[in-house]
């Protein structure tokens, strides 16, 4: 039973690689079949979900003298499901995107193996239970992400991609240095073993600081977010969607996992991280509000929204168990809601830009009449980002507010309020532009129906998740805050 589940899990993790290669080799018309085949993967995860409810699925792989540990608990399984769904959606979107935007562009075929690699890397990160496996996943993810960002091949894409590459590489060296210190001090890479032996002494702290530095850089947390926006400005829409929704979150996931194992009681450091998050919320919101082009708005909004996740650190460190539980649930709910909504938003923005042929906000005038569905999708996705009911963002914000009030950490209440208002400001700035009626008529290119439908489904899922939040959250609670 257990081995069957493990086998299925690894099949589901590895399957994207051959699928990606297949899509690469096959002519573009066949990609739909590959996407269809990949839709079996979320089903596998759904089958696994109830089985990890009571106890985590775990094991190790032996490679020579080296054993690699993995572990699938409820959180990992839920994140895996989220990943598979978002990747599947963007793969399906990419089929239409190629037809509408890039017909004749041969470089599009390279998208598929990279997407497969990214799917494998993300899966690896969710289930990894030692630092080596995490390292491998992190690096594979980073390289695949850079590769995807570079596909358009324009000068600004290359420059942004190079900057991203260099930052990602330096970030991984910082990570590796941190791992070196931990390994030197405690002699193990396995997370459970590390948690058992490691004490929060100076070496652990510094090692963790280096790890955190590398991860914050990769997660584009303020003030290390500089590479994020230019990279999105020129990337293809499905790539932006995957990146904004998942890639930056994986680094956050690793950070919080390690933090809770190694330094659960470091209150000052946790507050520093919380303040970084707060600054990210405000700065990202302000920049998104002032941005001129649609994609920049969405990209800056990612910087801002990631800040909410960082509030978890101070709410976990040294607070009551009930507060910690609430913050824990809120963060993962926020992460999931944001992932779905951000993917939807990038796709909707991409649709708007593709069919108007313009990328500036002022060029959106009249779109509410001509492209109501894309705009509606944008609006529904924005509901989640603003944290308005009944979306996942709202439910998460409710929990975060409750946790902040209960623990008496008042600054975060202000951050949540200001962040919401800023988000509303930039979202409605976009919508307002689209409502303008006296404007020169644009040519509107029709898009394949699927390209409208997929982001709409994602956005609705993000909204609906707020109402059915109890289902995943109960599973999270069952797994405990560990």
């Amino acid at each position: 039973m257990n081995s069957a589940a493990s086998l299925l899990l690894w099949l589901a993790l590895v399957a994207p690689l051959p699928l990606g290669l297949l899509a690469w080799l096959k002519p573009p018309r066949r990609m739909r079949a590959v996407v269809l085949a990949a839709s079996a993967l979320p089903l596998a995860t759904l089958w696994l979900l109830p089985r990890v409810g009571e106890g985590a699925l775990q094991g190790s792989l032996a490679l020579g003298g080296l054993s690699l540990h993995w572990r699938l608990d409820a959180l990992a399984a839920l994140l895996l499901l989220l990943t598979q769904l978002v990747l599947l959606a963007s793969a399906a979107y990419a089929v239409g995107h190629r037809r509408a935007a890039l017909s004749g562009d041969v470089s599009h075929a390279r998208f598929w193996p990279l997407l497969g690699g990214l799917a494998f890397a993300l899966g690896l990160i969710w289930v990894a239970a030692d630092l080596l496996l995490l390292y491998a996943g992190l690096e594979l993810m980073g390289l695949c992400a850079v590769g995807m960002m570079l596909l358009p091949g324009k000068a600004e894409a290359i420059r942004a991609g190079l900057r991203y590459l260099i930052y990602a590489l330096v970030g991984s060296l910082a990570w590796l240095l941190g791992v070196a210190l931990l390994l030197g001090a405690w002699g193990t890479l396995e997370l459970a073993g590390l948690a058992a032996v490691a004490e929060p002494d100076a070496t652990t702290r510094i090692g963790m600081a280096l790890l955190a530095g590398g991860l914050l850089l990769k997660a584009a947390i303020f003030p290390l977010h500089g590479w994020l926006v230019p990279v999105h400005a020129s990337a293809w829409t499905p790539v932006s969607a995957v990146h904004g929704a998942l890639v930056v979150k994986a680094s956050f996931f690793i950070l919080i996992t390690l933090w809770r194992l190694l330094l659960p009681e470091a209150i000052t450091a946790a507050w520093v991280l919380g303040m970084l998050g707060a600054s990210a919320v405000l700065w990202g919101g302000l920049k998104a509000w002032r941005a001129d082009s649609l994609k920049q708005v969405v990209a800056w909004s990612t910087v801002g929204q990631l800040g909410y996740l960082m509030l978890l650190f101070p709410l976990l460190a040294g607070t009551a168990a009930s507060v910690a539980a609430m913050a824990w649930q809120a963060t993962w709910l926020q992460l999931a809601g944001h992932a779905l909504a951000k993917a939807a938003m990038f796709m909707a923005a991409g649709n708007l830009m593709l069919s108007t042929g313009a990328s500036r906000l002022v060029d959106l005038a009249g779109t509410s009449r001509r492209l109501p569905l894309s705009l509606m999708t944008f609006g529904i996705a924005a509901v989640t980002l603003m944290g308005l009911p009944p979306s996942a963002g709202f439910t998460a914000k409710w929990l975060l507010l409750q946790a902040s009030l209960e623990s008496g950490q008042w600054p975060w209440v202000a951050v949540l309020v200001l962040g919401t208002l800023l988000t509303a400001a930039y979202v409605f700035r976009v919508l307002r532009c689209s409502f303008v009626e006296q404007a020169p008529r644009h040519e509107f290119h029709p898009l394949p129906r699927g390209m409208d439908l997929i982001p709409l489904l994602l956005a609705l899922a993000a909204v609906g998740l707020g109402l059915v939040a109890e289902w995943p959250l109960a599973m999270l609670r069952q797994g405990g805050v560990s």
Partner: protein
Amino acid sequence: MTVSLAWALGGLLVILACCCLLDRQLRRACLAFIVFALVMSFTWWQLGVPWLAAAEALLGSLLTGAALLHALGRAGDVPRLPQRDATPPRGTEAPAHWLAALAWLVLAGLALAALLRSGRLPLDGDVELSLVPFALLVMVLGLWAFAHHRHLLRRLLAFNILGSGVFLLLAGLAGPGPEVQGLILVGLAVALVGSVLGVLLLRRLYALEESVTLEPGAGP
């Protein structure tokens, strides 16, 4: 391997790193890096990890070296990169880079001091441990070069040297166990892919805009 051999190898590595990072003649710098990687490979061999030595020779020296030289070569129909780095160095502008480098060094130094004081590591006579100061020096050089240079090829070189410094430190602190070998192998593979990707992009960027830096408008 004896401690004196370790010292000799460490010294050689530092000298080669200097050659690689200071030379404006790019081909020479790349060749210096290849030699540097070969010495690294020899060091692994001396530490008793022949597999890692082979991997370093193949991935680090041969393939990464070939990729770096490819940037300067004639292959393909894209224009050739200039053979000399003519961009002015960054100097004291971009303080964020310098601050980050400094923070990195300070953190690494403090951690090492704490680790040595804690007595959890066997202190003297240990061959691996005698590599640590050289690893630190190599890291200093790599960080300095990374913050200082604008030319993307030189930054890639700096990144590779910095990475090697981290590997050395890793081996010096934790000994050449299987975990360390695994980490270094992944690191080598990443460095290789990163270098190849970087070089290809650099050539493309040069072909499109005749630029070898990240700043738009700053020509070669």
